[in-house]
């Protein structure tokens, strides 16, 4: 069979990963705008907060696929990020809506730096994992 479930997972992962890359680019840009006073923190939080959960869910989705298809290595390198996401959401500020970012605390230099760094690290991670998934897909397809 030329088109196995693992191959399918990798193809989905590639597509989703592209979205994740866009998310993190947006994230980085958004915080840069905050830092350089282009945007009001309330507006910025309003645009960032709705994207947090979709990003986490998309990331979870590809890992569920890896789990089901038995791609243990790809799953393994994603587990830390999943844990981080859970921790991050669990310790979010008190807020009624979904999301992570609180406009009253986001302008604190520490929070801002952490968020920006988080954006860059995630971007790098998603980029690297993109190539990993590409490689994994090719391997799976060839093996089949």
């Amino acid at each position, binding site marked *: 069979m030329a088109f196995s479930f693992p191959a399918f997972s990798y193809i989905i992962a590639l597509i989703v990963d592209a979205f994740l890359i866009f998310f993190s680019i947006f994230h980085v840009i958004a915080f840069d705008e*905050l*830092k350089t*006073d282009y945007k*009001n*923190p*309330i507006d910025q939080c309003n645009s960032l907060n709705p994207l947090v959960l979709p990003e986490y869910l998309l990331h979870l989705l590809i890992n569920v696929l890896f789990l089901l298809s038995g791609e243990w290595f790809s799953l393994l390198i994603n587990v830390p990020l999943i844990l981080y996401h859970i921790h991050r959401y669990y310790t979010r*500020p*008190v*807020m*009624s809506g979904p999301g992570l970012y*609180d*406009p*009253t605390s986001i*302008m*604190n*230099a*520490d929070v*801002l730096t952490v968020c920006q760094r988080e954006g860059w690290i995630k971007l790098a991670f998603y980029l690297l994992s993109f190539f990993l998934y590409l490689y994994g897909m090719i391997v799976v397809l060839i093996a089949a």
Partner: protein
Amino acid sequence: MSNLPPNPYNSLPGAPPINVNTGQVLNHNQQFNQLPASQLPPGYGLKDTNSNSPLHRQQNSVNNLNQSASSSPAFNQPGLVTSQPSPIRHMAPKPPNIPQSASPAISNPSPTPYPPNFQLQHQINDNTPPLSSQYQPLVNGPPTGSLRPPINLSGPPISLSGQPVSQFGQHTSLPGPPSNISGQQQYSTSSSYQPMGNRPPASATEFGLPPANYGPPPLARPPGSQPPASTIVQPSQFSVSSSGPVRNTPLPSGPPVNVPPTLSGPAGQPLKHLGMNGPNLGPQNQAIIRPPLGPSSVPGPIVSGSGISSMGPPSGPISPPSAPMGAPPGRTGLPLGPRSPNNGTQMPPPVSGPPLQTYLGHQNLPLTNQYLGPPGLNTGPIGMKGPNIPHQPSMPPMSQPMGPPSGPIQPGQPSNLQSRYPQMPSYNNQPQAIAKQYPPQYNAQGLTQQMSQLSVTKQGFDQLWGHHMIDLLQCKHILPEYPEEPPEIRLGHQFAESPNCSSEIFRCTINRIPETNSLLQKSRLPLGILIHPFKDLNHLPVIQCATIVRCRACRTYINPFVYFVDAKRWKCNLCYRVNDLPEEFQYDPVSKSYGDPSRRPEIKSATIEYIAPGEYMLRPPQPAVYLFLFDVSQIARESGYLQIACDTLRNNLDQLPGDARTQIGFICFDSHVHYYLMSEGLTRPMEMTVLDIEDVFLPSPDSLLVNLGERREMVKELLTVLPQRYSTPGVPGSALGAALQAAFKLMSPTGGRVTVFQTCLPNVGPGALQSREDPNARSSKEVAHLNPAVDFYKRLALDCSGAQVAVDLFLLNSQYSDLATLSGMSKFSAGTVYHIPLFRATRTWQSEQLNRMFTRYLTRKIGFEAVMRVRCTRGIAIHTFHGNFFVRSTDLLSLPNVSPDAGFGMQLTIEESLSDLQQVCFQAALLYTSSKGERRIRVHTLALPIASNLTDVLHSADQQCIIGLLSKMAVDRSVSASLSEAREAVMNVAVDALSAHRLAQNLPAGTVSSALHAPASLRLLPLYLLALLKRKAFRTGTSTRLDDRVADMCALKCSPLAQLLRGVHPDLYPIHALREHTAADQDEETAPDPPRLQLSAERISITGAYLLDDGDMMIVYVGTNVSPAFLSDTFGVTAVSQLPDEARSIPKIETEGNALLHAFIDKLNDDRPYASEIILLRDNSPSKQLFTERLIEDRVESAFSYHEFLTHVKNQVK
């Protein structure tokens, strides 16, 4: 009563007869419409018309507020600056515009120093004749003149008893107790001593200068009022070079003249109320419209007076308002046995200073002896107090510059050292550092007091150079008797004469900024600034000009610390860009001449206010709009606050800051929301109740906010009727959330101020809360629920902030009300939280307290739709802001309202090396709309020198400011992490700072050494930190209600420094000795000025009477054995038992002692927003704990005593 009459602009509407002119009425009719260009006032005419078009203004809207570079018309239209006509054009007299507020004629004859004079204004461009004379004081103001030279030059001549020290008399000749040099100190040799004497005179130029002081001059004690011992001796050669200093000159002390606002235009149209057009009462919404209110229409039960009876039962069990529940019984730390009162004799006469030879002999006394086993303990308390508190006379004389001299000097120790090195200053192992710099340690005032206590010591030199070092463990009386002035700032040569910002307004934790971040980390001190931007000022130059000169790159306002490249260009001191000077700036309004820009008031004053031209407005300035939200639920009715609030408001209606456009409105809420319609056709206010609290709507778009001037009578009637209306038993529900939403809807078109009175936990409708406090955990180590439970109030505050609405909360709760959540509404909308726990109107002292608090709140100055931007020199960035506001960008605070009682803090980080800079500048610009509808900018600029080594940094720390910043950081930490972590962090600050000092001085580690050395600049830090840990906000072990704790945290976050410090470390005064400390000259009435005592039961004698002042409350504590003569003279009774315990006032009788006490209390009350509460406690009072818990140097259960704390710190110092 407010002691600080707010600025007449705001608070005295119509006080100056010619106050309202046509120019001001302009805005009334154009309230929220964009001004068409053709209608713009003259000032606008100077600009390119493009910039005035509404379209342009719209585009600029964000930028204007951000004040970013591209937003300025001056930037966009460079031709503007140069092509403008000369200022002569503005000099045409404009008679109708002249008197914006207090005219000079009115305000001149009020020279009384204490109550701030009305804010006077200078007319810079206009009417010149008075200016030259009025500007004269800018240079040589009489108040400053009277302060400065006498301090430096006068005083007893060098009075050293025969020591050959005349050359260095100013260091060595001060009389006072002998000083002990600790064993660690090394005496320099003669050779190293000599060079110091030969140091260039320039190094001492600023030594004797008093600090700039915006406050009333008498706050800084004039030399005449000081005890004789504390007169400083300054040889003339040092003060000569400091003659004629403009530096530190207070702002112009002459009456400034105002430039009237340029706004002018047609007047008189009635206000159009914006807002909802047409009723949006949906069918699903039920609005019950009641008949007009009035005594006649009040429902039966009210008339029958059952409301009164309903207030009876709850008022029965009165308990002291702030007595913590279940608190441990009062400690018995007070002395029981008779002691010799030595309080009256703490000031030795200057000549009788102990002879020099005694002090050296003691330096080698074993430390433990001095602390633990002092001979000659003569009183009982010591046994109870633990071994760490020896009685005063038994203390060997030590190196305590501040402590009162401790009686007889113990002779007996041989004084070999003294004979060998008769006058050697010890200068603490840092010759190279000393030779390099002259840190600003002691200004003349502080030095005066400090030196008064020193005898000729070897520390003299170090002290002069600011490298004085103190062994904390030995220095028992560390607290200076009189408050210290903050350390002086000494700028480099070029700006040595420039006026710096007053320390009451702008203060930095380290007065010499470390040049690199690593140096800052090494010093382990927090770096930050505290700012009190809207403080009531006596003298504030106000400027109106066509172009406000600002840097084009960073938008910094021109200030005293800019460099003038040549006559036409200036270099920004924050970003170093070279800018052009507008033609207008060449003109000096004082001398009416051209050519010297440095004579402009902008250059001569570090605090200045501009009347902003049109480009600083996003919309026409808003009117003053006040909305009051009254809780009328069951608990509120029981408390009876409404009567007091309404009475106070009615009495102060005329003093509300505002102009003819001022609007006012009222909403009451229990489980429904009640609105009050005061429209034109009505003869009485009409109440409308909206039952639907889930989906709040306004029952009438109009007439809920009415013009105060037009409806004054109706408003007064409503305020009379309201308390009766709600005196019957009500429903338990409190729909605060719904009422706030309604308030937001009502206010959002205009912005303004919402005042919320709340007495209980909001429990219905949106924003309903559940009780979270566990009363059993009130004294536990870990405090939960410091965080908000829901974000409803925060989101509402953010909405309000966006609509320029501020929410102030008066929490008068008698049960847990979850202030941690509720305070969100004030925190992020730049409001204030006022808290009176366990409020009952039947307790007169509480109702009086509310009355004073609310009166001050109503009548103080207010600024609307404000933003504050803090700019720093490149390389320094703001890390975190503290206070009540919303941070809109990295350096911009959004302040819907700004009040004179609000302080802010900012933590700073050093991002780049500053080593190539001369100085670092901070500039805070507060753009606000005054209650008269003027847009104004208040600019404060602070410049600080740079330090390049650790010693300098440590020795230029400002311990008071550090405490101010730390308390704010600790509040943040306890909310974000936990209380115990915050406490830990506070304790570590002392350890860190002293470790850094140990490193810098190469001292042995704390565990090895027997001494704990601290730089003089940080000597009070451990004491203050300990006091901070014992404050309500951070204490553990003592039962503290959660709301009280949170309220204290709110207060710490937004109090100005002076108020905060008094709360952290209360002042204790011996009032039985008032007479000895009353100034001798009887020319004018002077209030007594007793020294502060240490906050230790050791200092309390049962034959004395004391006053403990923590800012909120003054506790008069009368010992059991106080002399009958004093009692009858002061209180009019013959025995202590006749004194009414827990009396809330001091009776006024016609005796001298009583008058003195009242004068003293009035003096203390002078510098705070409203008078403090007074409580009189007898020694055997059941509420004695109120007093004893504030004796922070003593041990209480679960909290360190001062000595234990020091020992703890010493063991940690590595």
